């Protein structure tokens, strides 16, 4: 904390409005630089990737050969569709189910509610790969292997602990008066839940985003549960495909770009939604 402390103090002394911007811009550069490096170099030929990684592609070094290789070989449209379905469906169910559970766990104190709260957090305390065989056996029994539904179920279960954990905290911060007033007005518990949900929208947005990311980027469960070409997600597709071209940096960078851009766009879209809900929430 002391580092932030000192920095903040410095800001105060200079009293300027520029310093905060400077800090933010500096960090922005650190955050963006590696991403830009991949983007720039995916449009260059192999020799200039190696010789001058910083330079922008010019007429001499511009090359789409990486993308040509990638598009020629992999079924990216299908992968993208699969990833989108899995990610969005998992996200929706996680938020819906998780919010209801988190609300119940914070709002109602009943016998065993603390135990249940801890029980619902066990999932993030054990390496998930430990349960792989058990999960696969379940899916084989349900007949869900090589179906996207198996991934959706796993991801919902996997993300519930974190969602409930974080949301519980935000529900705690909702003023009690609001709920008691509604109860006096004769609102049902479901209606009160509906009333409280908009108040935690910033948190819902945040959780939505960081639930979405590990799902999109997961390699392990697609490899185990849905490795078929029809159900391959984009991360699996890129990874399987990368093998042939490990030494071909054009193709590597191009496929990394292909995997990166959709999730960035998805993120920007959700982020916009989140901003809207945050501002709406703040203004009330």
């Amino acid at each position: 904390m002391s580092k932030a402390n000192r920095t903040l103090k410095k800001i105060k002394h200079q009293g300027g409005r520029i310093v905060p911007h400077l800090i933010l811009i500096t960090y922005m550069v650190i955050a963006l630089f590696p991403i830009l490096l991949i983007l720039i170099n995916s449009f260059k030929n192999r020799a200039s990737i190696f010789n001058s990684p910083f330079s922008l592609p010019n007429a001499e070094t511009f090359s789409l050969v990486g993308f040509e290789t990638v598009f020629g070989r992999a079924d990216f449209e299908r992968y993208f569709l699969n990833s989108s379905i899995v990610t969005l469906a998992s996200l929706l169910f996680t938020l819906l189910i998780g919010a209801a559970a988190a609300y119940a766990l914070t709002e109602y104190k009943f016998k065993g509610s603390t135990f249940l709260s801890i029980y619902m957090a066990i999932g993030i305390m054990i390496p998930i790969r430990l349960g792989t065989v058990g999960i696969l056996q379940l899916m084989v029994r349900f007949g869900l292997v090589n179906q996207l539904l198996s991934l959706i179920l796993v991801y919902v279960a996997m993300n519930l602990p974190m969602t409930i954990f974080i949301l519980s905290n935000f529900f705690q911060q909702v003023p009690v008066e609001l709920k008691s007033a509604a109860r006096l007005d004769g609102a049902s518990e479901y209606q009160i839940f509906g009333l409280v949900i908009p108040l935690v929208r910033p948190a819902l947005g945040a959780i939505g985003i960081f639930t979405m990311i590990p799902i999109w980027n997961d390699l392990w469960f697609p490899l185990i549960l849905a490795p078929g070409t029809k159900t391959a997600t984009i991360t699996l597709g890129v990874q399987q495909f990368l093998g042939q071209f490990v030494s071909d940096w054009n193709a590597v960078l191009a496929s990394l770009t292909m995997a990166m851009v959709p999730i960035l766009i998805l993120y920007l879209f959700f982020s916009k939604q989140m901003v809207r809900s945050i501002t709406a929430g703040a203004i009330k």
Partner: protein
Amino acid sequence: MVTKQRKKFPFYIVVFLAPAVIIYTIIMIYPLLASLGLSFFSRTSDNQYVFAGFSNYVTLFTDSFYMPRILGALKNNVIFSLIHLVIQNAIALLLAALVASKGRLRNFYRTVIFMPTVLSFVIIGFVWNLILNPLWGVSESILQAVNLGYLFKPWLGLPDTALITVSLISVWQFMGIPMILLYASLIGIPEELMEAANVDGANGWQSFWKIKFPLLLPTVGVVMILTFVGNFNAFDLIYTMKGANAGPEFATDILGTLFYRTFFGQQLQLGNINMGATVAAVMFLIILTGVLFYVFFWQRRVQNYEM
């Protein structure tokens, strides 16, 4: 357990909880706990599993092969987590506070700062390997540009620096999460409170620490415990960048990589599911201790403090 108590229970609580509890129990808890149970068994030479009590745990902490690995992984994991708890969360708080106060550009800043968190481990591993790579020379030429070229070393490959380097890359990657949680909490603080403070003549700095920070404490607690849980359960970045053997010479070996290597095997090494489950159980106990501490100590205190 919810259904058992249904009679005493208001029905709506069951409605709220049932979907989550059922899905989570069937798909997460049952497979995980069943596998965790394997830590109490061992395999005989004719492929039979026999109950072994705590002998796997004893082996893990006394055997001349396992002991250095588990202790090394624990030590590395503590370092890995401390770097996150201190550096990541301090910077995240600073960034969240700055972003929350900057009117027009704040959404832009927030969006950009979060971007690395969006990327997959494969991409992050690949790009940082390139940046820090002595052959590609990206970081070397950056250092040379400010006349510090002599400082350059192949950090990822040296036993003394590899762990810190990987930790910092992980800090870079996950910065967005604490930042956005703190930010969401900060902007949820009612304006009236701040206006009242301004009327009292407090400046920005004072009002932040005196008024906002106490209100942030529950979220700070969440961030701390999530960092702790996430880092003692971390695996992917080190696996992507340094492989399951977590080289050089186990310098980057943490509990997650030790578990994976033991449970699934590695190259010619066959997986040992019993010892693997034992490592997982140790991870579980460590994290559970942290969470219980949080729930019964930190959370209660913070709530009291608020009242």
